């Protein structure tokens, strides 16, 4: 496809256009696909939205693995609906990214070649059925905090996608919480299972919000252009303040010996986050990185002949219509 060559600092009208663009954002206007935008704004959005789409698509795997084992008709129906939503979110987000001048094929290629990132959280394995509940309550809980923030994003298509996705995520969050609360009051094995799941998912969940603001070089620009409206630490804090009291109320132990409530600010303060692990996982050394990518590649390879058949059939239909 033709790459857009506009919005670069060396363009003669860049300064003037940038000032107009930033004034629009300051007025709270949405930027739409055909509008002028700095190339760097476009680049950051493509990066974020495609990563988000990949996260939905890869994120189907850890939970999808438990659809065949869901322990009741109701749980299986819920989990099927949830993973289906994730596919729908992925599809929706790929379309949103396409409005910026990249194709789905290019994005998929970037994912399968290992070039593109997706949410680190999906590089952890789901070891028991309780993981499905914890992912719904905590992982989706963190995702909702982030996505509610992104619903205010200055880029129209992304903002609107987030509004719609948040509505569905709220249902994911609710079903996860409901399951966890049930198991936390359930049989001995159910209680053990759900505590174990919390132990394993707690720190990866906190890391989902991204590095501390002091270690997040993109943040100031993203805030200035209204791509993000809150910092990583703000999002993480909102998550903690909502979820910590509810987890404790459920009788679960949070695996952070330093966790404390700060009377002055009303905030729950977490202990040191194992960032070494975060950087290792993000750079490909997590427990499931390789498996996730292999699963995506395998589905892509095994589906190739199907996509070719689709294409051939469509061509034939077109040719017949033209006759």
């Amino acid at each position, binding site marked *: 496809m033709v790459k857009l060559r506009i919005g670069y600092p060396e363009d003669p009208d860049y300064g003037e256009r940038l000032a107009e663009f930033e004034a629009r954002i300051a007025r709270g206007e949405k930027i739409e696909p055909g509008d002028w935008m700095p190339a760097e704004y476009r680049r950051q959005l493509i990066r974020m939205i495609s990563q988000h789409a990949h996260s939905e698509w890869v994120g189907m795997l850890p939970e999808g693995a438990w659809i*065949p084992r869901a*322990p009741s008709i109701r749980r299986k129906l819920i989990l099927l609906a949830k993973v289906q939503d994730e*596919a*729908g979110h992925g*599809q929706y987000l790929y379309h949103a990214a396409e409005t910026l001048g990249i194709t789905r094929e290019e994005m998929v290629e970037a994912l399968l070649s290992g070039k593109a990132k997706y949410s680190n959280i999906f590089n952890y394995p789901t070891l028991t059925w309780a993981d499905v509940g914890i992912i719904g309550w905590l992982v989706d809980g963190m995702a909702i905090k982030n996505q509610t923030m992104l619903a205010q994003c200055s880029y129209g298509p992304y903002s609107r996608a987030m509004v719609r996705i948040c509505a569905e995520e709220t249902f994911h969050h609710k079903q996860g919480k409901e399951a966890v609360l049930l198991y936390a009051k359930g049989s001995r094995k159910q209680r053990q299972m759900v505590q174990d799941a919390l132990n394993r998912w707690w720190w990866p969940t906190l890391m989902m919000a991204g590095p501390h603001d002091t270690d997040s070089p993109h943040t100031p620009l993203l805030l200035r252009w209204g791509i993000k409206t809150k910092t990583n630490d703000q999002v993480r804090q909102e998550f903690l303040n909502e979820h910590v009291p509810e987890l404790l109320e459920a009788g679960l132990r949070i695996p952070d010996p330093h966790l404390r409530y700060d009377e002055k600010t009303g905030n729950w303060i977490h202990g040191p986050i194992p960032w070494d692990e975060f950087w290792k996982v993000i750079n490909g050394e997590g427990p499931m990185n390789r498996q996730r990518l292999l699963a995506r590649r395998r*589905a892509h390879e095994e589906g190739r002949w199907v996509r070719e058949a689709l294409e051939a059939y469509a061509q034939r239909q077109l040719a017949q219509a033209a006759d």
Partner: protein
Amino acid sequence: MLDPYLKEALVARLTAWADDEVVLAQRLSEWVGHAPILEEDIAIANLAQDELGHAKVWLELRQELDGSDPDHLVFFRDPLEYQNAVLVELPKGDWAFTMVRQYLFDAYENLWLKEATKSAYLPLAEAAGRILKEEKFHLSHSSLWLERLGQGTEESHRRAQEALDTLFPYVRQLFQLLPTDEALVEVGVLPDLRALEAPYLEEVGARLERVGLRPPQGGYVPKSRQEHTEYLWSLLAEMQSVARWDPEAKAW
């Protein structure tokens, strides 16, 4: 209302239908996250939900008759107790196998459900009407895939024909009566499935021909719903693994 014999007969029939749906939903759900295109991940998750939802409808009708617990029936019955047809338990295979099976099953469901809307047992007639609405969508989805595969590439045609060669003989099992079905047919509770086989073969045969596929002659037809393949045990073992893992759990 139904006398005890008819009641028992209807319980057996509802269970057979439910088992078909549970097992097919299980096979469909194995695709979720692994479909050839993202759009089909969405579609197949939807199909699996619908089929499982239909199982729930049949098991709730059964519950009204004998007070049985639907979850208990799904998660605590052994392979020898399952009454599903062999067609639905065969491993998912490739996309052609899954879609050809889905088409064959959808065409059958559309046919008998339409007849079942006239059932003298009103709860069954109403349920069939509700389910039929969803099954019409399933049939248009799988018919389109049949066409795309049959008329796509040489490879897709070959794979679809191979799938059909394996699957087609099993379709005939769907039209067999359970030993107790006859009584239900006599009082108009159940459509006579045997009478639907010829119209089915005609309708499906015509569509297959239109897309360039040919139903095979002969092949093994299971003689009753007691018959299974060696694939059922592992399918159920996985499906029931969490539910059976903790006998003390009171709720999931």
